[in-house]
């Protein structure tokens, strides 16, 4: 079993234990116990709850760290796609510029034809 699978299985057990210690049947059973025993059970419930939080945070933090390690490559991808889009829009600008030049050339050709 890999470390992540161990964490997953432990978390599952802790959650089941927490939920079992919150059932009405469990609480009814506790009522028959002494104050010390009830306090001990309450503290155990909080220990389970705390361990569960710690493990869940650890699982999520592992994933978060791996995502951060992937971040630079993802940002490069976004930048690369943006550049590809710029290139595509650049074609329109070039054609428009050529059109403007041709417009001037056409006027010059017309002028030369009528005046020379």
């Amino acid at each position, binding site marked *: 079993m890999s470390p992540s699978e161990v964490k997953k299985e432990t978390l599952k057990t802790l959650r089941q234990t927490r939920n079992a210690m919150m*059932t009405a049947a469990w609480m009814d059973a506790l009522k028959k116990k002494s104050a010390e025993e009830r306090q001990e059970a309450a503290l155990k*419930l*909080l220990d389970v709850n705390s361990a569960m939080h710690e493990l869940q945070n650890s699982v999520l933090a592992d994933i978060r760290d791996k995502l951060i390690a992937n971040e630079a490559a*993802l940002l490069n991808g976004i930048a690369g796609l943006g550049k590809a889009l710029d290139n595509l829009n650049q074609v329109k600008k070039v054609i428009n510029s050529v059109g403007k030049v041709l417009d001037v050339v056409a006027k010059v050709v017309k002028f030369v034809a009528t005046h020379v």
Partner: protein
Amino acid sequence: MVVFIAVLSGCAATQVVKESDQFAANGIAFSDSIAPLIDESFVLAVNADSMVLAQARENITDSGVRGAQLKQSDKHLETRLKILRDLKRHAYLLRSYFVAIRAITQTDAASGITEATKGLVDQMAKLKPGIAEAAIGEKSVSEFIEPGVKLAVAAYQNKALRQELSERADTIDREIALQEAALTAIYEQMRADKELEILVKVRNPIFSAYTGQGKLPNDWSRQRVDAFKLVISIDSYEDAVKAAKALRQSWQAFAEKRLDSASLLDLTRLTQELVALVKKIKAEHN
């Protein structure tokens, strides 16, 4: 023949651009759903934690011990909040990637270039009359411009997308896999916390009413039906995990040029279910 081959490859490029667009649209919808789910997971975590603290409090008489337990829970939840904030930020980053793909697939460059090229032909016609009407086969140059430019732009879009895929297929695959892992961990936590909420608020009163000495409430059976329905409703939290799996499978197919319409339809269906879940969660909070 050359024109025929060019048209065929142009049509294939148009199809790739269309599929990329649908894929990116699903990717955006998926990424948009992550933050509300993460927020809901935190609400459920705090609610469950509060129920545990309240239950334990009844049997802990020392106020110092009570205070220390509350502080410890707060510390765990603050740590969780920071991690979840990072996960949300990364989901926005993934969204930006899909938006960038869509910017290419949805660019209006084809119409802009068509207009600009038509203008160019007009200018050239002033220099050399008859050029706009010059025929290629049975069609004039002018008639060729629009479909020609559209195919050329699609080929460029296709090339840009393919280049991106060849450079970053593994990065995005890893990214989606990590999102799937995060959503699985969050789903399992949400499920357990929601089960606890249903237990404390619905199932325990049903149990106590039955095991107690008093008369059963008139709607006791109805309460049981509602409890079963609530338990079943928890399954919908798994939609996020299913959508992440489908997104990753589609991405792999997309990168390997084997994405088909059936896979896209499946991905769209799962993404829509996830979007519906997020809408339901938001409605419950309003």
